[in-house]
């Protein structure tokens, strides 16, 4: 077994842990009466999506002969060798966390039964084709054949395919779902910020696997180290930048701000981790943190209730990262060294071509994901209803949807 295999194995475990990490990150931000609902919306994705993935979506999303969608040749794990099986497991964790990202936007008001249906449907109708467009490989040659990947836009670990895709889907879903009762008048502060910090720590930890797990097979240790360092620096710089911005604007350094900055930086570097080098990760973190901070302020003005800022952080952070590739992509970085490997960015003599291509793929995915998600939500709403009763919303979803209470600290037990 190669060292590279060991790194993919552990990366699979690392990215798996990101979904519980995300659950805690989001769960800590909800109100205490609906935290279990948030945890289950996330955790459920680790249940249902893998079953689809080994069933057929992995095959459809990864391997084919055309530009638009893969085939069923690898369905049911058929015909895979050890590497193939390992990478199927590795990317299974990505498929699972992507719909989980959406959940933060619909906190505190979505019927769980509707979510239970939404996730597999969305995974099949949106995640699978978008992933193929970006990463689909020719079943024979192994070359990129999905139409976005083939045109030359770059997305290393899932900026467009995952963060933008989930972020804009979140927007579509909340537009159908509506606002939480009382929002934005009523304060709805996080109920457990230590959980948010814990979730952020687990996300950062896992993100090393997310962004560099696939690198050894492409560029060996050099590229893996590059991807890891980029990831690290973007997170650190994102944290510091957010802290500075909020201190200047709101007068305080906050733990929620630090965590948000880390996630914004990580989102932005995701598509770029193996295409930029040197200290570029810092630029990604700083720009993403600033843009996401201001993007979040928009929801109040535009009037959509993106409860935990999935749009503001994942969609916007993903767009920032995708576009910055158009400036910073550099074939001279450690681990690449082949000037033909990909187009270079504006700052490295590549002209605007890559930037245009990045913008094209981003816009394409924004539109596709928004439209299809909106349609799914509308259909679900018509058939089973996606919004819970007002009384249940006021009392909290944990009791009404799940017949559980998150916490019971009282000496009197249930009294």
């Amino acid at each position, binding site marked *: 077994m190669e060292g590279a295999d060991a790194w993919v194995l552990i990366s699979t475990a690392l990215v798996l842990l990101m979904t519980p990490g995300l659950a805690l990150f989001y769960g800590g931000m909800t109100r205490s009466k609906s935290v279990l609902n948030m945890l289950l919306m996330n955790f459920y994705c680790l249940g249902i999506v893998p079953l689809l993935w080994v069933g057929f979506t992995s095959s459809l999303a990864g391997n084919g002969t055309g530009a638009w969608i893969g085939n069923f040749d690898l369905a049911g794990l058929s015909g895979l060798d050890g590497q193939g099986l390992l990478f199927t497991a590795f990317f299974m964790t990505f498929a699972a966390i992507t719909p989980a990202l959406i959940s933060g936007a619909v906190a505190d008001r979505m019927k769980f039964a509707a979510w239970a249906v939404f996730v597999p449907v969305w995974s099949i109708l949106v995640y699978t084709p978008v992933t193929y467009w970006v990463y689909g490989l020719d079943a024979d040659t192994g070359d990129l054949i999905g139409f976005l990947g083939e045109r030359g836009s770059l997305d290393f670990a899932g900026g467009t395919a995952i963060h933008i895709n989930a972020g804009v889907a979140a927007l579509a879903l909340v537009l159908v779902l509506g606002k939480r009762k*009382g929002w934005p008048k*009523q304060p709805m502060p996080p109920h457990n910020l230590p959980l948010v910090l814990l979730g952020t720590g687990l996300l950062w930890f896992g993100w090393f696997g997310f962004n560099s797990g696939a690198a050894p097979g492409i560029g060996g240790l050099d590229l893996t180290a590059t991807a890891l360092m980029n990831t690290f620096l973007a997170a650190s710089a994102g944290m510091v930048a957010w802290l500075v911005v909020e201190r200047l604007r709101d007068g305080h350094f906050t733990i929620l701000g630090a965590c948000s900055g880390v996630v914004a930086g990580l989102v932005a570097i995701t598509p770029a981790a193996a295409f930029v080098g040197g200290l570029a990760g810092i630029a990604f973190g700083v720009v993403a943190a600033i843009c996401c901070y201001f993007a979040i302020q928009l929801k109040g003005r535009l009037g959509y209730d993106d409860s935990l800022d999935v749009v503001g952080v994942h969609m916007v952070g993903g767009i920032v990262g995708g576009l910055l590739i158009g400036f910073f992509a550099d074939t001279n970085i450690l681990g690449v060294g082949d000037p033909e490997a990909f187009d270079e960015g504006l700052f490295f003599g590549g002209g605007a071509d890559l930037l245009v291509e990045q913008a094209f793929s981003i816009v394409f995915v924004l539109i596709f994901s928004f439209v299809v998600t909106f349609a799914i939500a509308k259909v679900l709403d018509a058939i089973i209803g996606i919004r819970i009763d007002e009384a249940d919303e*006021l*009392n909290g979803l944990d*009791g*009404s949807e799940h*017949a*559980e*209470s998150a916490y019971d600290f009282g000496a009197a037990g*249930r*009294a």
Partner: protein
Amino acid sequence: MKLITAIIKPFKLDDVKEALKGVGVQGMTVSEVQGFGRQAGHTEVYRGAEYTVEFVPKVKIEVVVDAPQEMAVIDAITGAAQTGKIGDGKIWVTDIGGLIRIRTGERDADAV
């Protein structure tokens, strides 16, 4: 002086607070309580075992006011806390023998 105690639904606290401010109340004390009454509790299920939780979260508000304000305060609370559904809660009034502001030692009406 009168101590007015109200048990209300938790999500009505903000409305009641504003209503009380509206009738000139300048202070109150609030706590989280569990209520038992006509309003049904709910059922929880843990690994197939079902439990009935008979208590319902409520908020208790205590306001000390000068006697003449009693009716205005009661009306303010009733108006703001009413949803018309079972479980809206109760208000009761107690005579108190005196109120003291700890900071200054002022008494009764001056201490409110």
